[in-house]
């Protein structure tokens, strides 16, 4: 009987089939990663944003919220935060950061005084401008395509786990006076910001992660305490943070061959 079991080829065939399917999925996954890290990633990013927004608007929240802009804003913020974890390209990072500030402004505009909410987008614009000028001067012409498939897989895994953590926090810890959409977006931004800090020691990338984290917290906190002085101080913190990040990027990149514009784009700051 043992011999017949040994000869029974069904399990082996099953394993082979599973392997084939696995290879197919992995191959699709790799091509997907190559595409999103390739030349046309921005187009893909826009497409994915639209798909994600539709998904969020249609299925994750009750149907009556379809008429409210909040699910779409929340989805946009979440996606922008994912881009911060997934992409190394400074253009994508800064684009996502600016998108976050704009969406945060739109989201807060409906719940607090518009002038206080508007501070966010002004500060966001200045912050992104500071980082843009720094990055353009330091990194213009640098390909920065990431570190290879394995590292991207790791980042995707981080996004997945980050999402789980954010969802867990959202389910467990609510804050009086903060709407569910704001709370969900705030947790998502904060968790993705922290996860970005975990995966990199590059000052610019980590800095964008820090700003994402800070924005997530501000989103939550400003809903509870929408004072003008507090908003101004948060704005000052953001601007100073941007200046510090720009300064540290300059100090780091000018000295690291792997990061300098002429030194190729592979590799991290210092591993």
């Amino acid at each position, binding site marked *: 009987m043992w011999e017949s079991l040994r000869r029974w080829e069904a399990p082996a065939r099953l394993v082979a089939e599973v392997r084939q399917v696995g290879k197919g999925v992995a191959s699709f996954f790799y091509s997907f990663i190559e595409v999103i890290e390739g030349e046309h990633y921005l187009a893909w990013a826009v497409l994915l944003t639209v798909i994600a927004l539709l998904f969020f608007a249609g299925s994750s929240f009750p149907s009556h919220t379809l008429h409210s802009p909040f699910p779409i804003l929340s989805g946009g913020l979440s996606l922008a935060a994912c881009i911060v974890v997934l992409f190394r390209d400074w253009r994508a990072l800064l684009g996502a950061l600016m998108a976050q500030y704009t969406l945060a402004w739109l989201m807060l505009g409906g719940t607090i005084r518009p002038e206080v909410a508007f501070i966010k987008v002004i500060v966001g614009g200045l912050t992104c401008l500071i980082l843009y000028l720094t990055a353009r001067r330091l990194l213009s012409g640098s390909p920065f395509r990431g570190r290879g498939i394995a590292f991207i897989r790791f980042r995707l895994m981080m996004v997945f786990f980050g999402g789980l953590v954010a969802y867990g926090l959202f389910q467990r810890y609510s804050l009086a006076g903060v709407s569910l959409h704001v709370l969900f977006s705030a947790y998502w931004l904060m968790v993705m910001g922290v996860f970005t800090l975990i995966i990199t020691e590059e000052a610019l990338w980590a800095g964008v992660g820090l700003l994402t984290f800070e924005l997530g917290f501000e989103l939550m906190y400003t809903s509870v305490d929408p004072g003008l002085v*507090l908003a101004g*101080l948060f704005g000052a913190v953001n601007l100073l943070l941007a200046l510090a990040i720009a300064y540290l990027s300059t100090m780091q990149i000018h000295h690291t061959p792997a990061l300098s514009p002429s030194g190729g784009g592979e590799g991290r700051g210092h591993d």
Partner: protein
Amino acid sequence: MISPLLAVVLPLAIAPLAYIVRRWAWAGGVLAALTASLAARLFLSTPFDWSGQLFGRELALEPASRAFLIFAFGLSAVMFLYAWQISPGWSFFPFTLTVLGFLSGALLLRNFSLSVLLAELGFILMVFLVQSGRRGSVRAALRYLTMVVLAGPPLLLAAQLFPLLQARPDDEMLVQLCVALLAFGGGILWGLVPFQGWLSALGAEAPPLVSAFIGSAGQGAIFFLFLGTFKQHDWLLEGELFYRILLWGGFLSACAGGFLALFQRDFGRLLGYSLLGDMGCILMVWGTHPAGPVLAAFHFTGRSIAVVLLAMGLSAVRHHAGSDAFAELGGVARRLPFATFALIGGGLSLSGFPLSAGFASRWFLGQALSERQFFASFIFLAGAGAVLSYLRGLAAMLAGQDGGAERRWKEPFVVKALILIMALASLVLGLYPRPVLQVIGIMIEGYTFTLP
């Protein structure tokens, strides 16, 4: 009547001037030192229980904060004069003045949220000082920046709970949440276990005077901000969680600091771990004795003097030898006797070696913990690892040939004089601690508490 607001505005107003004269270290150093001294004098002249309003915000200068600010500005004046001789970078004078302005503003405000944000602004500015124009690794500066940003949210959330708790003081869950958030934020800023990573990086990469400023004025400001908050919201001290967190957080940090210090081979990282172990001792006592805040504040005084003394020596040694690794400091003790004395003396005092200021304050800490022998023994054991490492470093500096001898750098007169002044202050505090303790006791009288 002199308003302490003047003392807050003064360093902020002088900072641009210090920036303009940045090319001339002597001008920047003297200007910054004079400003810091004047600010200390202004704080000294303000009425004992000053309070006021600014744009509708309540301000108050608590006696403890007042004493701390006088001390911090005085200590900074000494550091500015020293930085004139061995510059930690042109940014040191204007940025340190600005940070001092922000920190004193934070201690003056009665609103905890605004205080935290002001202090955060100051700490973010410190990042520029930590890097100090050095190209290459930004590990220390980035870690510090990360920790400062991560520490903000828990503290601000705790501040949001204060009004809720005033309405529902019996809600134990809410009190515990508030205490846990404060402990989390404070733990990050003090670099306690498990957030100690930035302290060693800071010691290794930042200019020693900057590390000393963060270890004395920076961490001290947080300590006094917390003291004021606990006095204002005394229901925070009612549960046992507060004391447990302080005791165990302090114990773990003291053990980790002492243990890790034992294996260090350079003075920079050793400084970081010494600060960690020392902070652990402070917290252990703060949470276990009714007079804990007084003893902790006294220990802060001795620690600040010791860490500045150590930083003075380390700056000179790095300036001369270009390194602080034990292996590369052969013979340096013979060429730089004052710097070596400051480095080893400050280090030993920070670790609680007998006859130093650190030992005197640790002795009091040990006495306060006499009912908990297990923890009391660790007050001294935690310092033993660091003491051994400083002695190893001294042995390395005494042995061999001086590799940096070709530079022919000699300790300037100002350097020697300032080292002697700080060493004398440390010695006096070590030999005659009671008068200082009494003064601190009067200043912090209202902050003592009854254990639950």
